[in-house]
Structure formats: C-alpha cells, structure tokens
C-alpha cells in the first residue's frame, strides 16, 4: 500500500524529471537514450563479492529526430571487498563493443576503481561513492566522479520482497585527458526498484546528464531498466 507521503515523493521525483525533460525539449544538443541491463551478483560469506553485467545502449532521439539505433553493447565485471563496517573497495573492467555499430569509432576498455560508503539513517539508506576511471579508446580519458545516493523504501520501513523503493542520486563528473580539454558534468537520477523475490530485483529509472557545462554543454536523458539477480 503506497500512502500519501510515498505518493508525494513519487510525484516530486516525476515533477523533477518532467521539468528537466521540458527544458531538454527546447535544447538542440540533446540526445535521448535507452539502456537496459542485466546483472548477476555473487556474494559469499567472505568479504568479497562479484558482479557481472551486460548492458546495451540505444539512441532514441538525436539531432531533433526520433531515431532508434544501437550505440554499443557493454560487458562489465566488478570485484568488491568490504572494508570496515560500511565501506567497500571495488575494481572493475568494462568493455564496450562499438565498432560493430559505428565503423568510425573504436571499441572501448574502461578500468574502474572506487570506494563506497553506505549507512542507514532511520529507514533511509545513504551512500557516497568516489570513483575514478580510465577510458581507453581513440584517446585516453581520465574520469573522477562523486555520487551521493539516497534509497527510500516506499512500503514500510525497509524494502522487502514485493515492495518498491525509490532511489535519488546526484553525481559530479570531472573528465580530463592529454588530447582534450577538462570538462565538468552533473547527473541526476531517479529510479524505482521492485524486489521481485529475495534474489531478484527490477529497476526502472530516468537519468539526466548535463555534460561539459563549462564549455559546450549538451544534455542527455537516459531511460534505464535493469534486472538484477543475486546468488
């Protein structure tokens, strides 16, 4: 049962993303994407955990036209180690198959290193994530990111099976490289998760990205869907 306060939260987040979408409509440098993903999480009794993900990014709207085309397919693997009571160190590798969809671009290898810290404040879960990444493609780009995320259970005090939760996050991204000017970007994400069973979760969300806003800004909107399985 979703009560008034959870309804208000949903309305607020829809309003927030709706207003972004309205602004985006007026912008020429806007691209709309869809990104479905499936991930498998392996947790053991040890402090180690592993994640395998396959995702695909499709362009839905570009240059003021609706245009469905595949941008890339991505395979990712992350290995995490719990440190302390609330921290996690993660290293990951992502490989993007781009060439097969755009012959002018190379495939991309991305290395990821991150530290995340999650705590519970009453029934909310708040987490901080510091991530650095190296993107190897035609040129090499270094990324430094910080994300703050709040996870809110919408039924009761925590998310149980057959219950919804709402995640809201904001992330700052700084990019730099030898062959490019440094740039700053900001991301806002709002997503709804449904715990299908104790080890399966479905996620649906929207992410607004305001990229390179100090020089030549461009905006992107992602329609995200994800199925997450846990072993």
């Amino acid at each position, binding site marked *: 049962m979703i009560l008034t306060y959870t309804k208000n939260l949903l309305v607020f987040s829809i309003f927030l993303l709706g207003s972004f979408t309205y602004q985006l409509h007026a912008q020429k440098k806007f691209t709309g994407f869809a990104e479905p993903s499936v991930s498998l999480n392996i947790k053991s*009794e*040890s402090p180690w955990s592993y*994640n395998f*993900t396959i995702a695909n990014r499709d362009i839905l709207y570009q240059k003021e036209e609706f245009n469905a085309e595949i941008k890339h397919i991505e395979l990712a693997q*992350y290995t995490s180690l719990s440190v302390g*009571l609330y921290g996690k160190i993660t290293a990951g590798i992502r490989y993007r198959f781009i060439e097969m969809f755009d012959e002018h671009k190379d495939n991309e290898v991305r290395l990821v290193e991150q530290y995340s810290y999650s705590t519970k404040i009453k029934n909310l879960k708040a987490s901080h994530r510091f991530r650095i990444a190296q993107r190897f493609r035609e040129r090499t780009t270094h990324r430094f990111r910080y994300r703050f995320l709040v996870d809110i259970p919408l039924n*009761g*005090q925590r*998310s149980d099976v057959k219950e919804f939760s709402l995640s809201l996050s904001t992330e700052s991204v700084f990019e730099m490289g030898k062959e490019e000017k440094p740039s700053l970007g900001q991301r806002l994400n709002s997503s709804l998760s449904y715990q299908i069973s104790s080890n399966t*979760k479905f996620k649906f969300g929207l992410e607004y990205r305001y990229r390179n806003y100090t020089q030549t800004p461009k905006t992107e909107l992602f329609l995200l869907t994800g199925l997450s399985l846990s072993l």
Partner: protein
Amino acid sequence: MKKLSLLLLFSLSLSTIAQEVKLEKEERIHIEQMPEKARLFLSQKSLTENKTKRYYKEIDGDKKSYEAKLKIHRKTYSIEFNTLGELEDIEVEIKEREIPKEVLKNIKNQISERCDRYKIERIQAQYVNTSSTNQQEVLKQALKKNNFSKVNYEIIIKLKTKEETMRCEVLFDSLGSYKNHRKITDYAHDTHLH
C-alpha cells in the same frame, strides 16, 4: 558463573548466526485497519498529543502483529499489538547513556568478545506485556522509563567477524544478559555499482 555461561551461549550462537534470520516484513496501513482494541488503546490521552503516528502490519515468519510508531517528547515509541489488538510490548528508542553503566558495560563486553568490530546503530528499551502486568502498567513504565528491572534492550548492531559483515538484532535482559539474536537480511544489491 552465570555470566560466563551466558557469554558462552552468545558466542556459540553468534558463530552459527546465519541460522537465525529476522524475516520481518512491514506494511504501512491506515489506523482503520488496526484491530479495534489497539485503536482504543492508542486513543488514550497520553498517546494522542503527538500528530505524527504511523501504523504498520507486521509479518514476522508465521507471526502477525500490528504496530504504531509515534513520537512523545522527541522519543520514538513503537507499540506492538497482536492480531486481537492486545498489547504485546512497547519499545522506546534510547541513547547508550540512558542504559545503566554496568549493564551497558556487560552488553558491550559480550558483543566485542565475538566480533572484530561493531557499531551499535539503534537501542530500544522494550517493555513487554506479560501475564503478571497489565497494559496500563506497561504504558506507564514505558512513558516514565523508570522501571529498569522489567526492561529488555533490543539492540541493532552492525558487526564484522573474520568471516563476514552483517547487521544483527540482539536482545539483552535488564542486567545486560544475552537472550537471543537474529540476523537481519539485507536485500541491497549493487547500488554501489550502477
């Protein structure tokens, strides 16, 4: 000797912690969905002063119950009823400093013996409605928090052993002796990644 045996019991049970799992599921409801007796209990003057009350239906394994959460003098109270609306217990969120020093020391010793690191996330003083008490007496004790001889301490701890990191609900009696514990399941998937 009694303390030693309780410590041993707690140690043994923590080592087999995975077996005892808290399978509590809460669903927010309207007051009209609470049993009538519970509604009557909650309508008494000492509980109607605050405006924000939340009501939940709880399923804990095979057990069903109803719970009201409210704030009185900045303290969070959870009042639990059975399906007939009879009071089961009242829990009040308290700070560490509100537990008698010797009792707190006893509790902490027992926890730290069994894990590498821990953090107390929440403490609730639990006033149970037993056959020897009545509902009004329990409420009076909980509101005044002046009878520590009949209290239990329900403590949520995040702990790390050599094997794993987990969140746990541990119950101690008024003297700080271990009674039971349950591991709290966490459905968090990979929010730190995507």
